[in-house]
């Protein structure tokens, strides 16, 4: 008990209480947990066909990155137990609100009917098993991107529940996320005040790099930030932010130190090639400042505080970063959830102001 108290005091020193954690991962413990949320047909199919677990190779269950050692239970998956999540992810950081991003591999299925059934099941499971039981939790809507119609229908179905604050996409799917065929999804998100979160992971329709399949998981994970950079290019160049000016895009769990250099290049090419995409009426740098946010873990931070300070200057805005622990993924140790070198003012923005400005629904549902 004493230990717990002193840890909390230490936490309070690291991050101010009341933070809004924009990326945590409650885990679907197993397929059986979804059975109550599947309709009769898909429950029968799951059992009759002996469906395997849908965990994606994006997070090998026993890989060190997938769960911090002290957050890994003796049995079962990290992040699958509500009591532990309350203690480890919420209480430990004094978190007031945390957004749940389930990573069960529904997006990998090839049948669009099956994908829709399992997306519904994951969303209902999240609402019943987590959001109903813990008032600090909010949810992201898992959508079956295999069918735009089904994805829109799932958004419409879940949107009535104001605890869903975001539509969740993976970093790599069938087509780049800016493509016009996907725009009904963004129209639905904007209409309902839902942000669009893009998270590492892939439907594995294409190699996880633009140059083929790698040999090691280390490469797969390193390439997730590369994939997210390309998705940002697509969203900007196709004109998503002109068509849906109120839509906020959140780049989850993919670092942020790459952003300045990325924007220098994209904005330069925009100046040289804007005749190809005339609907992009302002510099990508401005678009990102208005419409795109990034979660802070993993920080991918430079080795020195001086470098970090200069990098934050390159970022050019104090509104871009959102607090996240990425629980239960192992991105940091102890309570070191924020990189060193952030001013108290910036910490306050990252912990609370920026998330509230990013997720319109948080303001509606946050005390």
């Amino acid at each position: 008990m004493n230990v717990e108290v002193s840890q909390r005091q230490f936490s309070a020193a690291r991050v101010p209480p009341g933070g809004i954690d924009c990326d945590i991962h409650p885990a679907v413990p197993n397929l059986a947990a979804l059975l109550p949320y599947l309709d009769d047909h898909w429950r029968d199919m799951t059992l009759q066909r002996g469906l395997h677990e849908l965990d994606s190779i994006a997070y090998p269950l026993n890989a060190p990155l997938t769960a911090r050692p002290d957050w890994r239970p003796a049995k079962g998956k990290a992040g699958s137990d509500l009591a532990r999540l309350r203690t480890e992810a919420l209480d430990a950081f004094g978190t007031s609100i945390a957004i749940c991003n389930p990573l069960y591999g529904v997006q990998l299925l090839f049948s669009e009917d099956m994908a829709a059934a399992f997306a519904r099941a994951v969303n209902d499971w999240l609402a019943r098993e987590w959001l109903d039981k813990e008032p600090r939790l909010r949810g992201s809507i898992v959508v079956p991107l295999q069918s735009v119609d089904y994805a829109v229908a799932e958004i419409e179905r879940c949107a009535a529940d104001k605890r869903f604050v975001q539509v969740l996409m993976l970093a790599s799917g069938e087509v780049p996320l800016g493509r016009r065929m996907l725009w009904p999804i963004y129209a639905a998100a904007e209409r309902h005040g839902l942000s669009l979160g893009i998270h590492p992971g892939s439907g594995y329709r294409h190699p996880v790099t633009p140059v083929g399949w790698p040999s090691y998981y280390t490469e797969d994970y390193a390439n997730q930030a590369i994939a997210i950079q390309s998705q940002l290019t697509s969203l900007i160049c196709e004109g998503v932010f002109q068509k849906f000016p109120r839509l906020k895009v959140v780049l989850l769990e993919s670092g942020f130190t790459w952003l300045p250099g990325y924007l220098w290049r994209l904005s330069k090419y925009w100046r040289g090639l804007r005749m190809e995409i005339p609907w992009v009426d302002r510099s990508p740098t401005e678009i990102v400042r208005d419409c795109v946010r990034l979660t802070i873990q993993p920080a991918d931070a430079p080795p020195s505080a001086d470098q970090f300070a200069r990098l934050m200057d390159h970022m050019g805005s104090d509104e871009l970063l959102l607090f996240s622990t990425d629980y239960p993924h192992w991105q940091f140790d102890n309570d070191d959830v924020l990189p060193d070198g952030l001013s108290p003012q910036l910490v306050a923005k990252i912990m609370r102001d920026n998330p509230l400005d990013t997720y319109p629904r948080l303001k509606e549902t946050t005390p």
Partner: protein
Amino acid sequence: MNVQVLPPRSAEPTNAVRLAIADGDIHPYPKSVQKEIYPFLEKRWQDYYETYGMLRRQGYQFGPAYPKGQPDAARRDAYPPAGGKPGSDLAFMREHHLDPNNVQLGILNPLSSGQGAMNADFAAAYCRAVNDWQVAEWTSKDARLKASVMVNYEDSVSSVAEIDRRAGDTNFAQVLLLSRTAEPLGNRRYWPIYEAAERAGLPVGIHAFGYGGDPITSGGWASYYIEEMVGHSQASQSGLISLVVEGVFERFPRLKVVLIEAGFAWLPPLAWRLDKIWKRLKDETPHLRRLPSEYIREQVWLTTQPMEEPRPRKHLLDTIEWIGWDRLIFATDYPHWDYDDPVHALPLPISDAQRLQFFRDNAMAVYGQV
């Protein structure tokens, strides 16, 4: 980027470029394949080319997958007055670029070389012909220019043979690969190429573009040329991740890699990310004995074009400092439209020592021209 036509510059070097420079990325083109390449290509492959053309892992017989922003992706003022495509006339290249910019060393990177052709025997024969052509039409006529050993890198056997053939020939300064390979660059199918390059003492240049057949994003095909152009920096990052993680630098410690036309501001954040991930997952790659950033710091160089343009521009000095002033090789990409002009490319206060490194000496050192 020069989209507008600038007034012709005097053939005399101006004060701003009185310093001799090296240019790490010049693109020579043949006036005509039939006139300039065929003399070095066996009749059998001439016939093949006439009948089937250059079939690559991309849909169109002619031209690129994404239409370029300018005809021939070229500066409008780079068309030789005597006719032919930009980059095809040595006399005009001298007058237009090499002399006024006082280029002391120019690295030739042919882009229509046979690389990426699906027929491996044809690709190897064509690459070999392009190597002979570079010597006959360019390096033997202008000692400032150095050729690249073009290899059909998807087939390491023919690549090694070609590298061995050119080893010791001072007309050649590097082995050239394209970035968009069929598998990531660190894959062991390519290791014999690195081994041969290391043995020959030649750096391996990896130029953006290529014909691996996979989409420019891991999430599918982008719609626009601008996405492809920006995406080369993502594809090059993926290639570098692979070179590091799959252990190429560990295995070939004297190998030098030069990433060409992929930009450079992405490098420090990528190195930070790799270090962090590797520390977490290093039990997967016990063949690596040092931090990813250490391999990169010692064995990787980058050409500068297209130079990132932050606002304010001085932010770029931080990035260059983090990469190392000794690691960047100035390049113009002549005659292409997004050419960087040595007079205007780095409008920042830097020391004379830094200027020398950046514009000349790093290239001289990497390419063994000291």
